[in-house]
């Protein structure tokens, strides 16, 4: 987990938009390698964040080749912790669903 950088502006004050001491944004970044770029893209679509639930923890997903990156950003460490647990749970569920649902498990045998 990395902390957002603290960037002082002129005169030693915090730059606009940055947080002061004791009020820093916390970030959690998770990178997941998939067997192929298509699998990563599929998982990305399934895990599309729910806009209504974006506060107080912001969730972003990005795909780069076969790597899916999840980034969670929050003020509060407790809320971030809960979101990490929830995110890992959703990710596990999507992967399990893909493993079970993808052919040939749920299709009729070809006649």
């Amino acid at each position, binding site marked *: 987990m990395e902390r957002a950088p603290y960037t002082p502006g002129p005169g030693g004050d915090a730059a606009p938009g940055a947080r002061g001491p004791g009020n820093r944004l916390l970030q959690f970044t998770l990178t997941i390698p998939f067997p192929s770029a298509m699998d990563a893209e599929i998982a990305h679509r399934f*895990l599309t964040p729910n806009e209504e*639930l974006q506060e107080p923890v912001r969730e972003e997903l990005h795909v780069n080749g076969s790597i899916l990156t999840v980034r969670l950003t929050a003020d509060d460490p407790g809320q971030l912790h809960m979101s990490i647990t929830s995110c890992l749970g959703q990710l596990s*569920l*999507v992967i399990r*669903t893909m493993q079970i649902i993808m052919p040939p498990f*749920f*299709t009729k045998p070809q006649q």
Partner: protein
Amino acid sequence: MPAVLGFEGSANKIGVGVVRDGAVLANPRRTYVTPPGTGFLPGDTARHHRAVILDLLQEALTEAGLTSQDIDCIAYTKGIAGRLTIEEHTWSLARSEWPAALCYHHYTTTPAPPFTSLTFPSLVFPSVCRILTPISIPLGPGMGAPLVSVAVVARTVAQLWNKPLLGVNHCIGHIEMGRLITGATSPTVLYVSGGNTQVIAYSEHRYRIFGETIDIAVGNCLDRFARVLKISNDPSPGYNIEQMAKRGKKLVELPYTVKGMDVSFSGILSFIEDVAQRMLATGECTPEDLCFSLQETVFAMLVEITERAMAHCGSQEALIVGGVGCNLRLQEMMETMCQERGARLFATDERFCIDNGAMIAQAGWEMFRAGHRTPLSDSGITQRYRTDEVEVTWRD
């Protein structure tokens, strides 16, 4: 002959159902039960749902004797009704074109019930010159984490099987299942559960909300009272309260709070939470008496607002849906009211009263045939999905 697969998991029940042409082909369900004296939290509930949902999916397809290729559409609970603020309720009524006189002019000046930690201070509306009871918090009763868990699976399954996806309003799921199972044609609906309490009637392609709770749902009131007495949550606190109430002999007077077309339960709950321990300690009453008294009071309130709605609509049918609708005493009291009015009462059993996947599948079936589709970009969930937001294009 479309077959629809429905996913439901907005509270502590998770179900997957299959419906085809008015027949329920499968409807397995699991309930997350917490220890006595406790309620269910979103994170733990979501964890429970994630652990069992894929097994339930397989179970549903096996029970229905279908494969993915036989399914025409995937439906899931997109959200359930939220409690409105006063401003939003007035706007909703205006949009539905019911006269304003139907709503707030009936409010009395009796003191507002004690506030719970979830209510805001009351407001005074100059035009009405009444003191209105606490405004609900802006979040609906739907639990975000469980809803998201189920939506993720529905979305995944829909895309992998290349089937259309439908987001369904939870309340409409209850109504459509109730209509299917009972055959009621155009009833006044009393929707009562742990998360919702609404009186609804259909008009011009909307399920219009005539009245509702202005704070907590009746099922929530019963569930939280069960925690006070440490009544078991297995199979459900409401069921156990009902069994205890049958042995109650003494009616303890509790606050009766009907405000025009709406009801309020937070004051009753606060009152009974305060007096329960004292009265039990002094032997004034038994836990069974308290269960009996609470049921008689809150159910009488529900019967009153339902009757008022039926009188307004000239309705000859009443339908009870939602988990609290399983309660036989509530059904008995509603039946008495209906008989006095020459009306018919419809109710279902616990298979369809309590949250289940088939009700989402049934509502999805209606919507699918009417041409509704939910694009992937709109396939999230919402905790504020009002019953009257949905255009009911599948009915005349």
